[in-house]
């Protein structure tokens, strides 16, 4: 049922750990949304988080770049290490963290500015380009990286909001890629896209893996199986099972995982 070539790819996965989460707890007010999550996310790997709605997978994703800080009632405990540095250390400025850990959201959310300015915004605020030519180079590279360059190269001055849904999402990916992050978080990036746009984004994820660690939250188990090497299954705030994607989908250890992937829960 799933692509058997996947095993070969898994074998070449470099096993240096990029993100290490230990005993992560998240509370929204009194609600204990995420319980005791321990996970090691590898560099240059696509890791998929699957699970039913409200299971905490997006919550955990937002912990990794501290987007939960923007929710006043959210409280995070435990440790998340990025390259062995605790990102919840008091000395860490979330702004600096988010330059290293980029994010693509569920709904395409380009700025209501030109395509060029959308991509150039991150490099500009982080001072990545010394002059216009360098910035042009970064923008072109990011748009090429997001497989959007050929479609928009003649209309960089047009508003990003005028693109189609799939193009908008790839623009958001280009925007995230432009700041040269080390980790790219994607929160259901294809849920608002049609199958063709989804296929393009998935192809893109495969390419992005060569440059950094990608963490993707998805509702589609087929998508997780197609794009990821590692899969984590969340259920009711617990990380139930984490392992190679093939193992999760073919030989799940936990009965809940099996029930979910075979469509009995969720």
């Amino acid at each position: 049922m799933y692509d058997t070539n996947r095993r070969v790819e898994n074998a070449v996965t470099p096993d240096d750990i990029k993100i290490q989460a230990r005993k992560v707890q998240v509370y929204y007010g009194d609600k204990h949304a995420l319980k005791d999550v321990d996970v090691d996310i590898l560099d240059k790997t696509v890791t998929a988080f699957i699970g039913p709605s409200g299971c905490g997978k997006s919550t955990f994703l937002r912990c990794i770049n501290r987007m939960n800080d923007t929710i006043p009632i959210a409280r995070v405990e435990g440790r998340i290490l990025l390259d062995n540095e605790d990102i919840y250390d008091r000395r860490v400025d979330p702004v600096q963290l988010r330059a290293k850990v980029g994010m693509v959201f569920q709904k395409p959310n380009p700025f209501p500015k030109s395509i060029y300015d959308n991509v150039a915004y991150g490099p500009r605020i982080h001072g990545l380009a010394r002059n216009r030519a360098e910035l042009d180079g970064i923008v072109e590279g990011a748009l090429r990286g997001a497989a959007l360059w050929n479609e928009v190269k003649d209309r960089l001055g047009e508003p990003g909001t005028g693109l189609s849904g799939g193009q908008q999402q790839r623009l958001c990916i280009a925007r995230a890629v432009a700041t040269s992050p080390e980790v790219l978080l994607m929160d259901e990036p294809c849920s608002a896209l049609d199958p063709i746009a989804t296929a393009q984004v998935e192809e893109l994820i495969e390419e992005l893996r060569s440059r950094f660690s990608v963490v993707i939250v998805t509702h589609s188990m087929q998508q997780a199986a197609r794009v990821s090497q590692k899969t984590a299954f969340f259920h009711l705030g617990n990380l139930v099972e984490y392992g190679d994607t093939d193992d999760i989908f073919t030989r799940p250890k936990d009965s809940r995982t099996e029930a979910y992937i075979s469509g009995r829960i969720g």
Partner: protein
Amino acid sequence: MTDNPDRKPASLLRQDARTRARNAAERRFRWYGIGAIAISMIALVVLLATILTDGAGAFRQTYLNIPVTLDAAVLDPKGNRDPAEMAKVLTLTYGKVLDKAVGDAVAREAIQVEGLTEKDIKGLVSREASAQVRNRVLAEPELVGQTVAFDVLTGGRIDGYFKGRVTMESAERDSNTSPRQLQLAQALADRGMIVTRFNWNFLRLADASDQRPEAAGVGAAIVGSFYMMLVVLVLAVPIGIAASIYLEEFAPKNRCTDIIEVNISNLAAVPSIVFGILGLAAFINFAGLPQSAPIVGGLVLTLMTLPRIIIPTRAALKAVPPSIRDAALGVGASKMQSVFHHVLPLATPGILTGMILGLAQALGETAPLLLIGMVAFIRDIPSGLPSGLFDPASALPVQVYNWTQRSDPAFIERASGAIIVLLVFLLCMNVLAIWLRRKFERRW
């Protein structure tokens, strides 16, 4: 077809009773709506028509064109044409010179009106006219000794006669005029000596006393209102917008900010006269600022306008989709960068609209200004900025209130004219608000 009528399959070609009732209800509701719109449109048309017919006269003014012999022996007794010396000659003297000129003109034209008295002839010109002549002579001393053609203001009743406000019948019962005087005025008009022109002086001059409505203008009120708007613009807009941005984007959500929020809403609902009392106590009695000054009016209006700017500004900020904030934070923008680079530009049309409507409300506010002494009789136009902020001034709505208190019906015309000026300013501000909203409106 079955025997049971309840189970008969309903035809789509015929409305059942329920559908008919629902459609009738909808039709009724539409008519209520159209009726409501019609009533408000009629009210608006009646209001505008009344004001325009009453006030249009204020923009036209009747002048008497007569040659005045400026006798050097009377007007410059020392004979050295020194304005300082000539200033010692009182307006009363000029009045006599003018009365003689009018009498001569009437005699020269050989106008025959039965029973015409000297009082009727003197009353042709405004009490302000002698001051007009004096001012011009003091400005141009070389005129003394010559016979110069003057355009002098006619009296309020004569002015009213040519605008249709005063008739022969009303003059019969009026101690300030008489049918004979009106006949004389008509005869002079027939000879082209009395003319009606556009009244620029209405926009230029300050208020005038009860006996000379023809000389009253809204100049001081316009300048006062303008200075106050300047104060409001400089204070209320930056403070209001900064407060809104902080409360909406940066402030922690806790009991303290909740209390602030409730109080801002309450402040917006406080009757404006209360702000007047506050201004009287705080700015005049405590801080010692002068009464009737635009600075005090501006400060009071600033206090009043602040919540009215904060509330729409916060609403505009709240209306910016959170996905834009997430997007900015997601690429590593700081909170401040996300607000100033993305949220604020998107909220600009809403903020500008709220701001201009707040200013327009402040422009039309009367009650607090009465309490801080702006209802006083203001004879001089405030000087230029910045000292003009501390000069006594009036304001347009207060001037309207002031004139409607006067007994002479000519002031009703002036008050309506001032309302027209005020409405034109408000209309301009609203058009500006709409234009800015269109210009900055962007989709996302």
